[in-house]
């Protein structure tokens, strides 16, 4: 959940939302509360088509949708991509949140033209950006996204427990959840929610310990890693210590992991 307040001023308290731009193209990854301020910025640009790729539908990754300004612009088009289901369409599943009693505005009432699309099996393009969605280990159908453009690759796996029930160090790459997403990525944004002490009490919750994140990043050969999806109970000081621990553990090639902070802008 979102954790704004004096204890998270340096790191930020919004839930997951990342904007990716390249050569004038844009894709938004996940729609947590961070989508609200992004939407206000995008609204300044007037009518446009916007693509949002959802890794999964846990509330912290979609709760920004109801407050996304372009949804209320009749001249805007929004395409929502997400994981498929054999039981309900993406629209039906998202509408469980964007409907009474949880939200006062139904999808059908939103002035913008909104389309719901299952992320395809295999690569696809959005405005020249090449995307791939791969299922990853997390409760419920969950994707990691890989975005490539001009020879650089961004790997986005915000919720991930690749070491569930197994020692990640002992696995070959073909058995590692999320490996195709992160393989040799220029930048990897990966779940690093728990300390090594916290994880044993949270096995199966769908998130990684800091040591598992470091191991995964090293095995995937990511050129750079950002520690992502901070635990709501962790303060700025906790997260700084978290990052220091990751850097202590780092034995891979390239620079050690850094902490993701709200508002970061990174050029690849």
């Amino acid at each position, binding site marked *: 959940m979102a954790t704004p307040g004096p204890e998270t001023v340096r790191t930020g308290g919004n839930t997951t939302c990342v904007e990716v731009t390249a050569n004038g193209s844009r894709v938004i990854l996940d729609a947590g509360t961070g989508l609200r301020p992004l939407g206000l910025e995008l609204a300044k640009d007037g009518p446009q088509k916007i693509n949002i790729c959802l890794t999964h539908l846990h509330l912290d990754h979609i709760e920004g949708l109801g407050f996304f300004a372009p949804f209320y612009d009749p001249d805007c088009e929004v395409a929502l991509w997400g*994981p498929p289901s054999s039981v309900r369409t993406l629209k039906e599943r998202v509408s469980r949140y964007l409907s009474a009693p949880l939200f006062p505005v139904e999808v059908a009432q939103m002035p913008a033209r909104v389309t719901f699309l299952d992320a395809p099996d295999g690569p696809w393009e959005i405005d020249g950006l090449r995307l791939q969605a791969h299922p990853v280990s997390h409760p419920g159908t969950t994707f990691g996204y890989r975005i490539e453009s001009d020879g650089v690759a961004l790997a986005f796996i915000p919720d991930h427990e690749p070491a*569930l029930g*197994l020692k990640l160090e002992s696995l070959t*790459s*073909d*058995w590692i*959840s999320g490996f195709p997403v992160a393989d040799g990525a220029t930048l990897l944004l990966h779940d690093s929610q728990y300390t090594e002490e916290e994880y044993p009490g949270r096995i199966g919750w769908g998130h990684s310990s800091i040591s598992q994140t470091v191991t995964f990043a090293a095995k995937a050969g990511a050129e750079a890693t950002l520690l992502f999806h901070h635990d709501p109970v962790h303060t700025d000081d906790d997260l700084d210590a978290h990052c220091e621990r990751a850097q202590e553990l780092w034995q891979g090639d390239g620079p050690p992991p850094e902490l993701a902070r709200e508002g970061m802008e990174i050029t690849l």
Partner: protein
Amino acid sequence: MEQSVRQRRQKSLVLILAREFASNLATPIYIADADERLVYFNEPAEQIAGRSFAETGEIPIREWAEMLAPQATDGQPLQREQTPGGIAFAVRRPAHGSLCITGLDGKRREIATTAFPLFGPDEEFHGIMVIFWEQA
């Protein structure tokens, strides 16, 4: 020839989770992928198969079946398609039965087996999981 890791096809999440599940159970289990390759069997299964998975490695399921020389309980040989695993693969439905195998340690065993197909959320077929245990 053993494939290098880079040459091996990335396992689907369904198979990854199936292996995680099997590796944490005391019940003998083997897993085959949609290409009919044996991709894993757990330690309890090694006791019945008579060889470890590390020794066997990933092999075509037909080769695995030939190694174990399955027979009906009356001693008649069974084709792969007549075994619960073969049925689950071919017909894409669960199947159960008793049969005899000769483990790779040369010991003949009567086993009961239950096999079921693995379908992902997108209804794609990923392979089969087979639970088997030795009957007294």
